């Protein structure tokens, strides 16, 4: 796709313009760390932000979302749709790639997840490359960063002379067209710096963790029970890893009634929960904590790839850093990957 550029001082103009036409969501610092939220003041945006504590998944798959309302005596079912156009600006390539994995899973025919599709359709995803990856990151393993991801419409990369902007989709090109006066074609010098940057960052990350991905498919057999049992001992069964993960998509539903209607909500679930596969009859194909932990890792590294043709991990490092018990997916990758 075509490479454009935008001058550093024009970024704020761009953001302001965007926020007039769309709901602009971008990371800014609050209580000591960065979070995505509606950006009201473009000055709050910091180009050098460290990635957000929680993933932007919630803008596409909220923690709790209405599926339908059913009015008992009127005989129809009501579905709520949200139609406003959203721009997610400054998302890191790993998180953007997570969206493409979600696309693979949730928009996989014949049944498309209409609730997700609706939000996804109305969103423009603009990523900002990682030029200084954090210590927890390992996006190089799944080629989901640090410069380019797979789910974004536009990719911004910060260089010394402004931002290199790559339009990745038609939607991205349309945005550039809309704000044409702010963008121009990237020049050779800039592209050189850009390419150099890619090499440098990849080299740095590659030295941290190198994985032979072809072996991941067999991880389920290779890892063996002992490894999972060892980690299961320390796992405290919170759902932090799943909630923080940018692509943990499993959901739970809940039905109840309100003043005049029956409602169903759906929202995040976690496979670490002992109830995840437990049936009403009491039967549970996954009884032990080790089984569940095994599923969590294998699901990401082999089961999603086998089923949906994409890795279930983008290497953002959130679960690694946030796990209270220090369970580390990189250990799996390093040992058997």
């Amino acid at each position, binding site marked *: 796709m075509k490479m454009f550029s935008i001058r550093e001082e024009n970024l704020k103009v761009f953001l302001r313009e965007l926020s007039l036409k769309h*709901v602009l969501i971008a990371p800014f610092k609050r209580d000591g760390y960065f979070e995505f*939220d*509606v950006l009201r003041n473009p000055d709050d945006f910091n180009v050098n932000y460290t990635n957000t504590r929680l993933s932007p998944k919630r803008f596409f798959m909220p923690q709790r979302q209405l*599926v*339908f309302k*059913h009015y*008992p005596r009127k*005989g*129809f*079912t*009501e*579905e*709520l*749709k*949200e*139609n*406003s156009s*959203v721009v997610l600006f400054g998302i890191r390539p790993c998180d953007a790639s997570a969206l493409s994995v979600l696309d693979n*899973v*949730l928009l*996989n025919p014949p*049944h*498309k*997840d*209409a*609730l997700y599709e609706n939000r996804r359709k109305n969103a423009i995803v603009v990523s900002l490359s990682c030029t200084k990856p954090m210590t927890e990151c390992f996006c190089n393993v799944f080629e989901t960063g640090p410069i380019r991801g797979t789910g974004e419409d536009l990719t911004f990369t910060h260089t010394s002379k402004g931002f290199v902007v790559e339009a990745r989709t038609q939607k991205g090109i349309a945005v550039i067209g809309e704000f044409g006066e702010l963008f121009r074609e990237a020049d050779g010098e800039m592209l050189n710096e850009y390419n150099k940057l890619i090499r440098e960052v990849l080299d740095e990350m590659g030295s941290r963790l190198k994985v032979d991905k072809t072996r991941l498919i067999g991880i*389920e057999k290779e890892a063996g029970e002992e490894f999972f049992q060892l980690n299961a001992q320390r796992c405290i069964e919170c759902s932090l890893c799943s909630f923080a993960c940018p692509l943990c*998509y*499993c*959901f*739970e*539903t*809940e*039905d*109840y*009634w309100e003043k005049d209607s*029956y409602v*169903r909500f*759906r929202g995040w*679930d976690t*496979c670490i929960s002992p109830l*995840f*596969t*437990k*049936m*009403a*009859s009491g*039967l*549970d*194909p*996954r*009884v032990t904590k080790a*089984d569940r932990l095994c*599923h969590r890792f*294998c*699901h990401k590294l*082999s*089961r999603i790839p*086998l*089923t949906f043709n994409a890795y279930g991990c983008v290497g953002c490092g959130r679960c690694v850093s946030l796990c209270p018990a220090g369970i580390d997916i990189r250990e799996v990758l390093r040992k058997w990957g």
Partner: protein
Amino acid sequence: MRLTMPSRNRHKGGVEEMGLNPYIPKPVKIIRVKDETPDTKTITIGPKPFDEFTPGQFAMVTVYGVGEAPFSICSPPSDNNLQFSIRKMGSVTTAIHEASPGDEIGVRGPYGRGWPLGEMRNRDILLVGGGIGFAPLRPLLLHLLENRNKYGRIAVCYGARSPSLLMYRDEFEEWMKQGVDLYLTVDVGEGDWKGNVGVVTTILDKPSLNKAETIVCTCGPPVMIKFVLKKLVELEYSKENIYASLESKMRCGVGKCGHCHFGSKHVCIDGPVFKYDEMATLPKGMSPF
């Protein structure tokens, strides 16, 4: 934070609109409720909210305000209504057990892969069921009987814990009249039970079928399936022709919610009917081996 303004989009619940959001059940009325066994009821709902399905497929049944759960369809595709045999287990099934004709429930489906009807043409067929596990086999059996001349011999081995827990007892005679070799067994006899006593594997050798070519369909509790599969192989039925219907927790029925993702299979899409060798690839706990 108010991200967006919700706009309301109302559906009359028509079939064409259901395509928009796969998660919206269609409201249907309960027509009949029948006590099948002390803990199981068969509900009939109608009119059928979808046209065609393959025996062995399931539907998601919603009790509004309580929840949704997957149930095997237990009426044949030719029927204008739908039937589900439901055992009292959790909140949804308890609510269904409290229901009476005229109550409204939601249904969506049909989902999953049913029994391999195509494979069965002109072959002998053995159905092996255990307890409530006969529910997905009943539509198959009734479908086979409706098209009796297209298939070979049909044998049914059905076991339950006690005679009163055998489902569809009032239909046994009719099945036999139509040429089904019916073998029954119970774990514990009671009352005037004169039939076989023992687990279902003890009667698997009774049907005389062309074993190499017979299609075997089985469903029941996981332990039963495990031993039935073992016995079938011992009896020299071909692994190629053995199918079983497995169960799992499900939330969406369409491969999105992740609850039934075992190994590389979704029970809701790739199942619930699995072939013998497919079952072997499932991870421990889910695999009957």
